[in-house]
């Protein structure tokens, strides 16, 4: 499996506040841009895999979008496992290509949640009478409140300070300051961070992903042989994993470790790589605390050491593990991990606005359902 497929095209619309643009308009633009980026034609595309928009979670999204694109395909899929979807869909596309089901797969997510319908979180998606949707009765309404309890326990367990959380936001903002596509580009200091107000302690506004963004991202996956002849340098799919712990915060372990500990092991094993081989990381930065825990799950630090590691500046350019080099979901846009994935491809191509010199191996994370699902992708510049 390792290195048999590659990401050959990336299409990203503008991100942020895009009044007058429907989700369909953004989604179809991203698909067109991705096909053009790969140097392919629409007639080459024979698979479509989509994640439904959070603001309008249509059951038949892939069918509807495929109709608007006028596609005939040899494979079709729609998936939603929260923020783990982007990486998991690329993994599925790679498996479908490798299994011979299709040749050129387009993976897509697009949203107009900023100017269109607000994102729905809660009962509509989690189900009537189910925990955690019933927990809204306790004022548990919104992602930061879900996450803050894990962050609190993690920080208490390992003596992680607020400065350590803040250093994640500061490093990622520095990257965003060089990215014209980023929503927040004003440089951020740790002093400004510490003056920022709490949403749900210990998380401040600056610890949380941008609430919602308009925009769309499409990714073209094809065989490595075919990718080598296309317009852009391939980002080879060297390894991936998708793991879950569906007990959520009912399980004490979920407060300090994610299923990413297992999905990354699967990805490393498939790729024949170790954490030491990774040059650059794109974490699922829905919250600063999520980044720290993922660093430990992925084996870059021992348990409890990610905070000091971040505080020393290791997540910035020139650090030991430059991360979220587009600014991530904290500063670039909240495309539910898809913008983070697109940046992973740019690093392998050498075209990031915060390029890590000679980046050969990039790891990309996805996390969904508040600790429930985690996906990991290893992209490489050279084939395995």
């Amino acid at each position, binding site marked *: 499996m390792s290195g048999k497929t590659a990401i050959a095209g990336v299409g990203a619309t503008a991100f942020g506040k895009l009044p007058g643009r429907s989700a369909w308009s953004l989604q179809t633009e991203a698909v067109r841009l991705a096909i053009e980026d790969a140097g392919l034609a629409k007639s080459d595309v024979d698979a479509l895999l989509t994640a439904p928009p959070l603001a309008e979670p249509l059951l038949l999204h892939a069918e509807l979008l495929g109709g608007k694109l006028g596609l005939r395909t040899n494979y079709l899929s729609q998936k939603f496992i929260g923020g783990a979807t982007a990486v998991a869909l690329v993994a599925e596309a790679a498996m479908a290509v490798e299994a011979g089901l299709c040749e050129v797969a387009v993976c897509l997510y697009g949203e107009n949640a900023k100017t269109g319908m607000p994102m729905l979180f809660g*009962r509509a998606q989690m189900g*009537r*009478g*189910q*925990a*955690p949707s*019933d*927990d*809204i*009765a*306790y*004022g*548990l*309404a*919104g*992602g*930061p*409140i879900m996450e*803050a*309890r*894990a*962050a*609190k*326990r993690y920080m*208490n367990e390992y003596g992680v300070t607020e400065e350590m959380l803040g250093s994640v936001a500061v490093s990622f903002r520095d990257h965003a300051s060089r990215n014209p596509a980023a929503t927040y580009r004003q440089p951020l200091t740790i002093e400004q961070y510490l003056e920022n*107000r*709490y*949403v*749900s*302690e*210990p*998380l401040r*506004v600056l610890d949380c992903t941008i609430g919602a963004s308009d925009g769309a991202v499409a990714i073209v996956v094809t065989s490595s042989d075919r990718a080598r002849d296309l317009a852009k340098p391939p980002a080879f799919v060297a390894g991936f994993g998708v793991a879950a712990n569906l*007990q959520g*915060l*009912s399980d*004490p372990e979920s*407060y300090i470790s994610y299923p990413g500990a297992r999905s990354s092991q699967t990805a490393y094993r498939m790729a024949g790589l170790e954490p030491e081989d990774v040059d650059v990381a794109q974490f699922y930065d829905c919250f600063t605390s999520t980044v720290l825990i993922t660093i430990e799950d992925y084996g870059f630090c021992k348990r409890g050491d990610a905070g000091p590691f971040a505080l020393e500046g290791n997540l910035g350019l020139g650090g030991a593990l430059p991360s979220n080099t587009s600014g991530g979901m904290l500063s670039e846009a909240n495309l539910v991990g898809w913008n983070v994935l697109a940046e992973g491809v740019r690093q392998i191509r050498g075209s990031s606005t915060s390029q890590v010199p000679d980046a050969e191996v990039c790891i990309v994370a996805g996390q969904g359902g508040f600790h429930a699902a985690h996906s990991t992708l290893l992209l490489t510049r050279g084939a395995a």
Partner: protein
Amino acid sequence: MPHTLTELVAGASPIVVEETRGYWEGTLAEELRVQTCDACGNRQMPWGPCCTRCLAQNLSYVKASGRGSVFSFTVVRQAIHPSFSQAVPYVVADIELEEGPIITSNVTDCPVEEVRIGMPVEAWFDNEVEDAFHTKLRLPKFRPIKG
């Protein structure tokens, strides 16, 4: 005040479904019921349609002592949903029950600054409310054990 949250937000009450009916019925009798598996003895919260350890569907409950400790918590400072704006600051906490399982609730009856991980707490039952289908229930909440 935190105990008015369900009154503040339309539709914020839990919705009683078949598999959680016994749990919510218990709250009307001021009982905190932990679901148990007749086959393997597993104790689980929240209530579900089967045992999460062995998948058996013969499930009963034990009446919990109502005592536990704060496993983790957050002080909510900003109402993410505008309906909660009168309630902030309030504490959302995960309580580790003496019987083992962790449940999510509020910690009340103490300043939010005084809540700590490991703090001993006991359950109390808030005012009776109705869910969207007019089923009555009382939300279990937790307060520090004095002394």
